[in-house]
């Protein structure tokens, strides 16, 4: 039993993908960093020195403290505090948690939407296919950030600005998800077109199974590689988009600050030389996006799928 597990592990370790991972120290560092950031995000409430959302723990007299290594710094607040006396390190941990959560869920949403539309488009063909793919073409001419902004504006119009903050996180996820579905749909559609006329699909029809179900089962393993690559690169993009929306003041509300919101708040203090409030969360954001991008680049080269 253990030998079999060992053999499997050895096989994974010895595979070309694993080899290309091991061979590049940069990718290994990126992988470890990403894992570390994920862990921080998951366990943020346990490892943060303070609770940045609990107003009771915040003391205004601790406001605008520089990082601990600065002569005016306070060792209690390693990365300094913002104008309200909030610990930056804790705020960054919580912000990271939100940024990653929004990023993940919106990528999953885009993936589900894209795969479904791609399946339908490829399977149905004809006018359904034409409508979906033309919509994809038109949407693709607009940058994702613009689409996300637009959806955001529409949502505000429908919900009303007053209640928007409560639903902001859902709107942001929807907005980002809706602006990233096209690539998945195209990849899946291409794969469906290849598989559709194969015998097993025809056979499934004969025995009365719904071919869409069969396609779903057979296509998914086939497109896993490309979809994974797109998803990784999209995760980086989704995190950037969320940060940008929040920075522009149309993303997550100030009560639940993500990294983008923290940077936006810090930006106001930048002119007065209180650089750490903006720069500390910025560093966290860049490290996160850079690590995910490096992993995405490596995955793309290692799996080498034909991306459209």
């Amino acid at each position, binding site marked *: 039993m253990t030998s079999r597990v060992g053999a499997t592990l050895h096989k994974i370790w010895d595979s070309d993908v694993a080899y290309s991972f091991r061979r590049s120290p940069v990718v290994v560092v990126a992988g470890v960093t990403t894992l570390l950031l994920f862990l921080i995000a998951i366990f943020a409430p346990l490892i943060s020195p303070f609770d940045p959302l609990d107003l009771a723990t915040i003391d205004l007299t601790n406001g605008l403290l520089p990082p601990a290594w600065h002569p005016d710094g306070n060792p209690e607040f390693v990365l300094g505090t913002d104008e309200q006396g909030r610990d930056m390190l804790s705020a960054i941990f919580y912000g990271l948690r939100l940024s990653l959560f929004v990023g993940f869920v919106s990528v999953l949403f885009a993936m589900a939407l894209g795969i479904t539309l791609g399946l339908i488009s490829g399977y149905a063909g004809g006018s359904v296919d034409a409508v979906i793919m033309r919509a994809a073409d038109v949407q693709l001419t607009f940058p994702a950030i613009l689409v996300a902004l637009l959806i955001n504006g529409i949502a505000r119009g429908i919900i009303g600005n007053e209640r928007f903050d409560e639903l902001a996180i859902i709107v942001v996820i929807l907005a980002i998800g809706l602006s990233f579905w096209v690539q998945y749909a195209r990849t899946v559609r291409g794969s469906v077109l290849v598989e559709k006329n194969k015998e097993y699909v025809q056979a499934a029809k004969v025995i009365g199974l719904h071919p869409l179900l069969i396609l779903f089962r057979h296509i998914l393993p086939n497109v896993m590689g490309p979809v994974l690559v797109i998803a990784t690169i999209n995760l980086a993009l989704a995190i950037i988009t969320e940060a940008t929306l929040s920075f*522009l003041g149309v993303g997550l509300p100030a009560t639940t600050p993500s990294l983008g919101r923290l940077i936006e708040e810090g930006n106001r203090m930048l002119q007065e030389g209180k650089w750490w409030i903006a720069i500390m969360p910025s560093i966290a954001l860049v490290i996160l996006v850079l690590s995910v991008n490096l992993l995405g680049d490596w995955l793309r080269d290692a799996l080498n799928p034909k991306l459209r």
Partner: protein
Amino acid sequence: MLAFIIRRLFQGIIVMLAVGLVAFSLFNFVGDPINSLVGIDTPLDEREKLREQLGLNDPFPIQFGRFVLNGVQGNFGLSYRMSEPVMRVIGSRLPATVELSLVAAIIALVLGVGMGVFTGLYPRAALSRIFLTVSLIGVSLPTFLTGILLILVFAVWLGVLPSFGRGDVVSFGAWTSGFFTSTGLRALILPAVTLGLFQLTLIMRLVRSEMLEVMRTDYIKFARARGLTDRAINFGHALKNTLVPVITITGLQLGAIIAFSIITETVFSWPGMGQLFIQSVQSVDIPVMATYLVLIALFFVVINLCVDLLYYAVDPRLRFDGSKGGH
């Protein structure tokens, strides 16, 4: 040739109509257009009369047709927030955005294509590795962060460049330009670099991968086997073949620059259309949002048309075989 242009024009019109439909739906389904015209205390029957007058009770196709006709004449109604004709509001912001985008596009194109070609031709050179590392950081750096960092270094710490506004501008009729004053030019530097940087890295990476792809083709190997000089192979054969995909990519990127100016304009308080758009999103100023959308779509369609014409000039396969088309 003519048939080709007409077909592409027709496709462009379809795209514009589709975007117009989205914009029109915004008007009709998000918020009540009547609210933007009258006070809250207007009685219901008066509202209904106004609805009838404005044709808001007409069937959907007629309303949409009217919307398109008005749109073609540049009439998109009044801004909710500013109670001014939308086209005038946007028009006054247009020069700032166009000038910023133009400078950013030139930075992105010249440096992006140059660096992309270099890294594609000499993938092992030390300079290529530096370019690639910088580009990866560039791709991972959100535009607003680039802006903040540049402000911090050049405006706050060094104090050599302004961090907001457009400086002094010169008016030429309806157009205002910052190109002709020293404050205008200085104010342009940081925003243009910020806006251009992300596109620069994208263009560079795409040009590089196209270049690498072309260098692997049989006709490049055959050109080597014929003993052609590296110069002839790299800049005669490879570069021209890279051009076709590069034109498409850069065309799309140029369009993206105008849209991305939203972020840059917000960071640098640049008085352009992008800043206006954000303010409209925040205050749900539907007419401005819809018009901005249509305008951006128009930019894209025009750019795509130019791209197609360039294709036509570069690739003989399109010229002689219209039926195949595509790339």
